[in-house]
């Protein structure tokens, strides 16, 4: 047995070396003219050429070694893993989970709770601003929006391309009611959610008779209509100028974050005056909102209404044959999703202190939808991971100063974020067509809870 194994491994090495050399030759042939020779204009405007043997050598060596490593190590490893999987008979959803896997949610929650404290300790209050605000809050807003949209798209299978409309309704509800009536954040937060949910029902009524592509187009149009109303109804919304000076959230009306206020929170707590404390406070608010969204979604999935949503995604006609009022069921999904969008919107308004129609363009809807699809429709964990990767990734691009050394000082990496976004989506969809978490947790079980593979679930058609 051992000799045979050695034989095959030495055979494999020989094969790998051969293929590596071959790849090197091909690379040499391909890049000789493109890389090895360069033409340029000299000072007399003459076209002259020079050779770049060093660079060509790098290309050839990378190709050769890359091919060698692929054949010698990477492919056998993949094959071995596939074989081992096939032998155990366990499909992609393994029952043996590591400690990290089992307690992933608890670890993630503790990490999130400690995140602002840790960043203040590491970078000081002012230095933590970037991490708490740009990364933490930004990502969590998208997590919440995507979880809200997940109810509509992931559970009920209704493709909504105008989700940002409800985000806008929530944001403007807060901005207008707070500016005109002086209501506080804690009164307006639920109110904004209710108003957005109400708009969800109003928009839903005419729209939900449609299915599939038609529904998607009409929701897209509604999203744009809301934005155009915000731009053109200048008496109320001040049009493209937007509404600025939106009141900050207070600590339940006890302390305030206005520096001029007598009970300024950091002063009351004996902390240095800094805007970082407010951001940390906001971080915990959006974290709590996210957790509420997750909790409600998890609970709703185990309710008859949540099961009806998923059944609707699977087969609408069968739903009707079982006595389920599909119109009412779709409306509740639409309204619930819209409500969470409204919560997120009012939070957005208080965080920015400024809202304008520019924040609610179609691109936002597309990004939120992309996060839901990438995460795996219906999976809260997958969507959270997708939001971290997508939103955190684009934020990270702003930090990539070193790229300027490679591509020149004019290079602004964040301009390429949509390009990278698209590239990342293509890659993920190629390798994980059902998103990061493709399987589905059943809502009830008789003997054991087995995840349902993504190959059985449907995406819904309207």
């Amino acid at each position, binding site marked *: 047995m051992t000799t045979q194994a050695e034989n095959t491994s030495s055979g494999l090495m020989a094969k790998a070396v051969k293929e590596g050399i071959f790849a090197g030759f091909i690379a040499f042939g391909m890049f000789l003219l493109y890389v090895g020779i360069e033409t340029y204009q000299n000072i007399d405007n003459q076209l002259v050429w020079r050779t770049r043997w060093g660079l060509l050598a790098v290309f050839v060596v990378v190709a050769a070694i890359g091919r060698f490593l692929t054949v010698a190590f990477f492919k056998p490893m993949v094959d071995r893993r596939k074989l081992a999987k096939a032998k155990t008979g366990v499909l992609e959803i393994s029952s043996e989970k590591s400690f990290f896997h089992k307690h992933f949610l608890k670890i993630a929650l503790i990490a999130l709770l400690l995140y602002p404290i840790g960043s203040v300790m590491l970078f000081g209050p002012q230095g933590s601003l970037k991490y708490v605000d740009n990364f933490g809050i930004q990502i969590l807003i998208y997590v919440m929006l995507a979880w809200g949209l997940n109810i509509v798209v992931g559970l009920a299978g209704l493709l909504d391309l105008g989700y940002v409309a409800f985000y806008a309704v929530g944001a403007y509800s807060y901005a207008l009611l707070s500016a005109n009536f002086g209501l506080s954040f804690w009164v307006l937060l639920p109110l904004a959610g209710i108003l957005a949910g109400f708009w969800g029902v109003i928009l839903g009524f005419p729209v939900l008779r449609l299915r599939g592509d038609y529904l998607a187009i009409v929701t897209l149009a509604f999203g744009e209509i809301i934005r155009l109303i915000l731009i053109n109804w200048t008496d109320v919304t001040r049009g493209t100028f937007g509404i600025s000076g939106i009141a900050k959230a207070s600590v339940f009306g006890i302390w305030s974050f206005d520096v001029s206020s007598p009970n300024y929170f950091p002063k009351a707590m004996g902390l240095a005056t800094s805007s970082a404390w407010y951001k940390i406070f906001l971080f915990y608010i959006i974290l709590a909102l996210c957790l509420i969204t997750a909790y409600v979604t998890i609970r709703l999935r185990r309710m008859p209404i949540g099961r009806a949503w998923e059944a609707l995604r699977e*087969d609408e006609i069968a739903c009707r044959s*079982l006595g389920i009022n599909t119109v009412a069921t779709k409306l509740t999904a639409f309204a619930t999703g819209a409500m969470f969008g409204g919560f997120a919107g009012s939070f957005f308004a208080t965080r920015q202190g400024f809202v304008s129609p520019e924040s609610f363009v179609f691109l936002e809807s597309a990004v939120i939808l992309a996060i839901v699809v990438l995460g795996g429709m219906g999976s809260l964990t997958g969507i959270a991971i997708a939001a971290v990767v997508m939103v955190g990734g684009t934020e990270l691009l702003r930090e990539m100063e070193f790229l300027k050394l490679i591509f020149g000082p004019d290079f602004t990496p964040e301009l390429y974020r949509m390009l990278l976004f698209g590239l990342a989506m293509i890659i993920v969809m190629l390798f994980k067509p059902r998103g990061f978490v493709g399987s589905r947790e059943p809502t*009830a079980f008789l003997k054991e809870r087995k995840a349902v593979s993504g190959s059985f679930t449907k995406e819904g058609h309207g």
Partner: protein
Amino acid sequence: MASGTNTMNDTILKVEHLSMKFGGLMAINDLSFEAKRGDITALIGPNGAGKTTVFNCITGFYKPTMGMITMKQREGKDHLLERLSDFEITKHAKVARTFQNIRLFSGLTVLENLLVAQHNVLMKASGYTILGLLGLPAYKNAAKAAIEKATYWLEKADLVDRADDPAGDLSYGAQRRLEIARAMCTGPELLCLDEPAAGLNPKESLTLNALLRGIRDEGTSLLLIEHDMSVVMEISDHVVVLEYGQKISDGTPDHVKNDPKVIAAYLGVEDDEVEEVIAEVESEGGAH
């Protein structure tokens, strides 16, 4: 027992002068028949005779062009099915159905499929979700009862071992049985089955017969469309034969089996007999 036999013999579904027109095509033409409570009534006929159209009219998926469909419930309440929309027919009139091409929620587990079927009961118990979200015991009890009811039908359909598997993972025969079990979980008085034996092997067909008889013996009446004559002749109490959207025969399986018009419709007739049969049919139609 007298009242018992009485309920066994009264009409559960009455179809009167039902017509359904698709553009210029008369899919059903003035069809009238009755189904008795506690019976298995079979609707048979060659392909394109309009059987599934009748089903879709009864279960509200089509609105009939003309005619009246009355569902008489056990408590004596009557529902005019042509006036109800599809989900109301299951919810209020207690008529459940299955589909010719199986329509399961393939991404949900077998158990979840049966729980979705109990949606209306559970919705009420959960106080239209609001009370259920608060975690009140009323909903918990109802949820437990729903799982028990589901388990009961899983046992009947011989699917208990597969309860936690996705419905899409079941074999074809098991999917057929699951669809019937799911329809039964809505608590129907009349169960309409559209070709339940299609695509089953003889052994599966036998277990299906047993399942259907069990359902009838528990007091649910059945109306079924079937091509498989062994199933029809074996289990049905009453057979209605359709051809070109019209009823050509109506009676016990034995009566229907020997009816020359049925034989002609199914097997065709010798050339010299055709005119004879046509004349016969026309004279009947004229008399009608």
